[in-house]
């Protein structure tokens, strides 16, 4: 049935707020355990000490005690107010979002989360974030963190991240802004926390907190989990679309009859040219190969690639193609000759109509 009995105890403390939250949570827990403990101790002690002995036990006529009433009114009231004050403080702290924090956007709709990064990358049900690790001399976090604005396209949803100890309702017709300061690299749950219909429990996702360097690479589209396409909106994603639009994959593909070399996993390697020299497969080499391919043909291949001058592939598009080729790992396959437009990251991938039926 299930491999091991797993009892989750405390979710990871993946944000700055999570740490202060947990402190407050355990403070309340300690106080209420003590208070409930007093009550339970009274109940147990009195049940034992004063259990009925004879059917005609006499009991004293005790009507009350104003002093005790004031005591057990005043002491709980003081503790409850301490909860309020402490809670109000941490509530305020998480509302305090620096103005220079980069702004992210999330839109909930039945039944998915659409996220957008400040530079335009788009994700569905996944969110990659850079970790906040800049601290000053006293250990206080100086990173501005990120700003997240959210809304809904249909019914009320709630964007909840237990590892950050945070959630907020996303309401149609309004945009609400919150802030996060992720402090722990890792992958965490996103849950929809406001009932929204049939797919409410399917509306879950993953937050990936990456190191700052990894996040920068991810933004470009060159860092990603194996088998995934470059993130929507990144340069590499634009490059992939262009790769297909320009039909580069008519020669640079995975078939045995391909007329052009493989590109996966080539970035950073040294490739032999037909004149015997070794060429490092770097950004400049990629750009030259697109602009003027016959100038450095790879060893063993015919010089048949057409040139793409600036009026066919402008500088931005060139950069995007370069980012895409750079992002291709060994394990990535070039897109098939007949593959249609690439699917967004996180979406289930439909087989293209022209592709061969998968073997049973």
């Amino acid at each position, binding site marked *: 049935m299930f491999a091991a009995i797993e009892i989750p105890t405390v979710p990871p403390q993946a944000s700055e707020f999570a740490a202060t939250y947990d402190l*407050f949570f355990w403070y309340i827990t300690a106080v209420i355990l003590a208070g409930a403990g007093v009550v339970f101790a009274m109940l147990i002690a009195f049940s034992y000490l004063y259990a009925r002995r004879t059917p005609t036990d006499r009991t004293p006529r005790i009507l009350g005690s104003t002093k005790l009433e004031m005591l057990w009114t005043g002491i709980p009231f003081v503790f409850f107010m301490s909860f*309020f004050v402490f809670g109000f403080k941490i509530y305020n702290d998480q509302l305090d979002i620096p103005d220079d924090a980069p702004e992210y956007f999330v839109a909930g709709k039945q039944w998915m989360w659409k996220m957008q990064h400040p530079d335009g990358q788009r994700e569905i049900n996944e969110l990659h974030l850079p970790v906040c690790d800049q601290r000053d001399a006293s250990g206080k976090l100086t990173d501005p963190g990120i700003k997240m604005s959210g809304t809904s396209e249909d019914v009320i949803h709630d964007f909840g991240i237990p590892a950050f100890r945070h959630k907020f309702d996303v309401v149609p017709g309004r945009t609400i802004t919150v802030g996060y300061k992720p402090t722990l690299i890792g992958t965490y749950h996103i849950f929809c926390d406001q009932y929204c219909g049939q797919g409410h429990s399917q509306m879950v996702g993953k937050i990936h907190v990456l190191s700052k360097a990894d996040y920068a690479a991810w933004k470009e589209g060159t860092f990603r989990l194996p088998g995934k396409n470059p993130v929507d909106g990144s340069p590499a994603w634009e490059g992939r679309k262009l790769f297909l639009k320009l039909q580069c994959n008519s020669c640079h593909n995975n078939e045995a009859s391909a007329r052009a070399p493989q590109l996966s996993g080539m970035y950073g390697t040294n490739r032999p040219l037909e004149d015997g020299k070794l060429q490092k497969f770097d950004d400049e080499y990629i750009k030259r190969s697109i602009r003027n391919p016959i100038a450095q043909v790879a060893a063993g291949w015919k010089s048949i690639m057409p040139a793409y001058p600036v009026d066919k592939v402008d500088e931005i598009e060139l950069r995007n193609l370069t980012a895409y080729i750079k992002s291709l790992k060994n394990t990535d396959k070039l897109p098939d000759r007949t593959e249609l437009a690439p699917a967004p990251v996180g979406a289930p991938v439909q087989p293209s109509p022209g592709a061969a039926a998968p073997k049973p």
Partner: protein
Amino acid sequence: MTKVPELHYTPQMVPMPELPPEQEANRLHYLNHSYGIFSWLLTVDHKRIGLLYLVSASVFFLFGGLAVALVRLNLITPTGAILELDQYNKAFTAHGTIMLFLFLIPVIPGVLGNFLVPMMIGAKDMAFPKLNLLSWYVWMAGAMFFVWQLTVGGLDTGWTLYPPYSSKYSHTNVLYAGLGIFITGFSSILTAVNIIATIHKMRCPGMTWSRLPLFIWAMYATSLIQLLGTPVIAVTIILLATEKIFGVGIFDPALEGDPILFQHMFWFYSHPAVYIMILPGMGVINETITCFSRKNIFGYKAVAWSSVGIAVVGFLVWGHHMFLAGQGYYLGLLFSILTMLVAVPSAIKVFNWSATLFKGSISFEAPMMYTMGFLVLFTIGGVTGLYLGVLGSDIHLHDTYFVIAHFHFTMVGGMLMAWLAGLHFWWPKMTGKMYSDFWSRLAAVVAIVGFIMTFIPQFILGYNGMPRRYPNYAPEFQFLNILSTAGASIQGIGYLMPLFYLPASLFLGRKAGGNPWMATGLEWQVPSPPPMHNFDTTPVVYYGPYEYSMPNGLEQLEKAGMIFSDEEPNIAHAGLSTPEVIRGS
């Protein structure tokens, strides 16, 4: 001094003088004075109406229990064991709506309130007996219509009915289900009117406000909330219907409406509604804890006024359900402070009840076992509410299983236990029969143990982020869900057991007699089952409702300033059972 017999022991220890068997067999009481289905369906006797509510509320409790059986069985696996997504959503909505609107809100006011309020204050019936019957019919009409809608298509919005989902996106019978709830609300209002009028106007001589049993104080506070709050939910449902039918933009942002407005209006009723549910339960606890520890309630005034305090402040805290909804910063602040305030009276009550046990003489029959269960479980429920009422800590716990665990501890561990305590306490009075001591105590233990096993894991699930209303969940939550379902099965057995031994007591139980628990209170001074009009002569009350420790003998009573020497003859003294009272015509 008048001709009142002298007693050498506390009156409650005196078994009420019983009629000789042939007279007892011929005694007319409220159950046997008339027969036939119409004598029940057209009765205006508050006691019979109480029994009508008992039967129907128990049936609806079973329906709500069936719904949750489906829910918890489905949650055994992370991908849903027995239900499709839509079916699950209808099942949990059915569970919530049935349990709240068709059971928790009406059960104690309808059953125990109707049966006992007139008797406890020395009256012959409610102020408006025909209105009382109408109240039951309105409730049955609304409830049956609602259940019918649940079965022919269901409702999948959750009991909270939030738009825009409920107004524009749900494919279920939101309008008709809302109509059912709308109709049952009127029953609430009519019962409340009746109880308030009865308590104000029909107290017997000597029954001052400070001599009222605390159950009456609790019913009074409950009725205030019902009267003032229920119209708001009625209007909210009307507005939702207006939006759905006429396309008028009230809550739908696409039509320039505001979905948060619905939440404000809904919770303005629904938060006081939870106090409608719990206050009668607290009232019952006052009665059982004093009887089974044979002591006066500790701090009568504090407990009485805390009921009123809860009712009043309970109307001011609804926004604590909306801290994350976008209601605004200052509103959140205000509601959080007020929520901390409303927690204080409940804390006072719990301490007072515990102190009532001090130096008592405690026995643990079924009513007391449920009472102790209440004290433990309601305390846990109450303190876990503090996490949710505070602005900062609610963020992580909102709409998770932590909230579910919290309100089940207060509603089930609190209110349901109190209901069962009351049912078991007054069953001998209502039926004249005693049930099995062994089976009733066992059922209490099974229910309480099952309850703890069901809901403690849910606190852990909630803290780890498992959201509410999820048919599928992350795989690491599976073990705790299985534990919770196992506990729910045990709990269910505990609730099903009374369905056997209570009806069995009608045929096999021994005769209870007028006062099997040796309790104080006017309802215990008449035989069981009570006569048609409760009392053969109007009682006169000279002292408070919980005088379990009354001094012996009349001189002592006079010395204590508790009775006076110019009493009238042949009048029943509250707490002093005299033969003249029993053998009325």
